[in-house]
């Protein structure tokens, strides 16, 4: 049986998180299909067809899919679920929003945030903010799964040439509508797909002081993140947050500045390849997980680092 991956996209292109979910689908086995539900989403569908290893792209193009509202999207996925062994979506705020709705409508459990596929019915997922890993087995006829993107490499976005098939839209449930969006504009890479991340914590002292991190980030082509403490203190918006309750990241290089290393923050970044910590408190728990720790004043160390790179 085939595996259906529900793509995350902006109608014109596919969001990178989808590529990690495709890799998870390939590990499960069986042909991989991608569903692109959007409005005027031909660009996204064409991009999905190019993903290496995809057997078919199914496209539902209707005005009520312009934005991924959980009520509409779940109804569509449920209508298309027949014949699939697994339904997968990346565990982004979009995937987390509509997938449990799909699972409940199909009367099956959802397996959230998997980081490994042991077999087609057995998966590994973090619990307790990543302080424990549970291996769970599903007995449901169809497995509804969200994929933690850091657990799987991205599939190649080029090289495939899957056929594109139109599917009919499900009726618009008309329960909800999008009123507006306030998206953070940034020329820097997105946190969840950045190769390098520079993050600030409470030690930054203020939002203005994030300037020195931005200068370092620009030098490294990095994204800027923050701990929950920095967000709670109002230094930066919540979408900067890395941690159990924010984004989970695993870049090549993670530079934690003025971050003490609360469990909830570590849960979001400890799978990074190389971790650097700069903090004036030598006892800070962040040093326990850092490959390179520098005890010192961040207001001297960070500008110096920026200059010497």
């Amino acid at each position, binding site marked *: 049986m085939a595996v259906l991956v529900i793509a995350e996209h902006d109608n014109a292109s596919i969001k990178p998180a989808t590529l990690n979910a495709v890799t998870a689908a390939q590990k499960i086995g069986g042909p991989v299909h991608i569903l692109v539900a959007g409005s005027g989403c031909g660009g996204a569908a064409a991009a999905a067809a190019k993903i290496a290893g995809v057997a078919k792209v199914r496209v539902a193009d209707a005005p009520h899919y312009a934005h991924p509202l959980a009520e509409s999207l779940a109804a569509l996925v449920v209508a298309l679920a027949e014949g699939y062994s697994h339904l997968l979506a990346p565990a982004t705020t979009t995937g987390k929003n509509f997938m*449990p*709705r799909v699972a409940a409508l199909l009367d099956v459990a959802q397996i*959230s945030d998997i980081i490994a596929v042991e077999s087609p019915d057995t998966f590994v997922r973090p619990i307790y903010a990543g302080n424990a890993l549970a*291996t769970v087995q599903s007995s449901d006829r169809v497995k509804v799964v969200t994929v933690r993107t850091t657990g799987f490499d991205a599939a190649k976005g080029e090289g495939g040439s899957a056929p594109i098939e139109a599917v009919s839209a499900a009726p618009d449930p008309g329960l909800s509508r999008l*009123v507006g969006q306030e998206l953070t504009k940034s020329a820097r890479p997105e946190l969840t797909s950045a190769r390098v991340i520079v993050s600030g914590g409470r030690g930054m002292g203020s939002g203005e002081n994030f300037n020195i991190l931005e200068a370092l980030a620009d030098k490294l082509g990095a994204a800027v993140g923050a701990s929950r403490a920095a967000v709670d203190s109002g230094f930066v918006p919540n979408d900067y947050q890395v941690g159990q*309750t924010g984004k989970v990241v695993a870049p090549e290089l993670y530079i934690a500045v003025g971050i003490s290393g609360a469990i*909830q923050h570590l849960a979001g970044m400890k799978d990074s390849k190389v971790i650097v910590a700069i903090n004036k408190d030598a006892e800070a728990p962040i040093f326990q997980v850092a490959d*390179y720790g520098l005890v010192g004043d961040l207001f001297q160390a960070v500008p110096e680092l920026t200059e010497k790179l």
Partner: protein
Amino acid sequence: MKILVPVKRVVDYNVKVRVKADGTGVETANVKMSMNPFDEIACEEAVRLKENGVATEIVAVSIGPTQCQETLRTALAIGADRAILVETGVEVQPLAVAKILRKIAEKESPQIVILGKQAIDDDSNQTGQMLAALLGWPQATFASKVKIADGAAEVTREVDGGLETVAIKLPAVVTTDLRLNEPRYVTLPNIMKAKKKQLDVVKPEDLGVDVTPRLKTLKVQEPAKRKGGALVKSVDELVDKLRNEAKAIP
């Protein structure tokens, strides 16, 4: 307008959890338990809606062992009017929780169900969405602002790229994110008052819900430990190590 607030009893967020030696789960014996922090935010939001004259009654509900009564008393002390415990000794997974809550919602007919976006034990992030699906209601997850007027709600949601606002018809399910509010401290007089409030106990069987788990936990392990702890003395040494040892920068 009635609000239903489901709350979960979990290992306190300050406790460093330990995996059991036999790999069957994490140690919960003699560990401090508290209300799931996201559910506390849900209680607070419901109480504020009542204080603002939007809501008239708040019913808290919890599912689990007898000790969940303590969690419900906390909800009552924050300001819920009465509580329901669905008592069971077995593990209840999100789908079964949603089915139980559907039965309670059908009986109580709330206009809004507010609950945490996830519980900090299993980190599933499913129950609210599943409940909305089973009831055929709209949902607004990861809420950071809730406005209610004229039989509808406008909810600002925390999403990956920033914020988005959705309009949903009531009745609806709302799940809370961290910045929705800061829960009040529970005062002693309110704890005393909470002891006198009504708390009913029912069983899943009474509601006709099958709570058999769909997922079997085969094992629980500790994650691989990171080998950290190395210090550098200067920025120069850091740059050198990053460039030549870790090869993390060009």
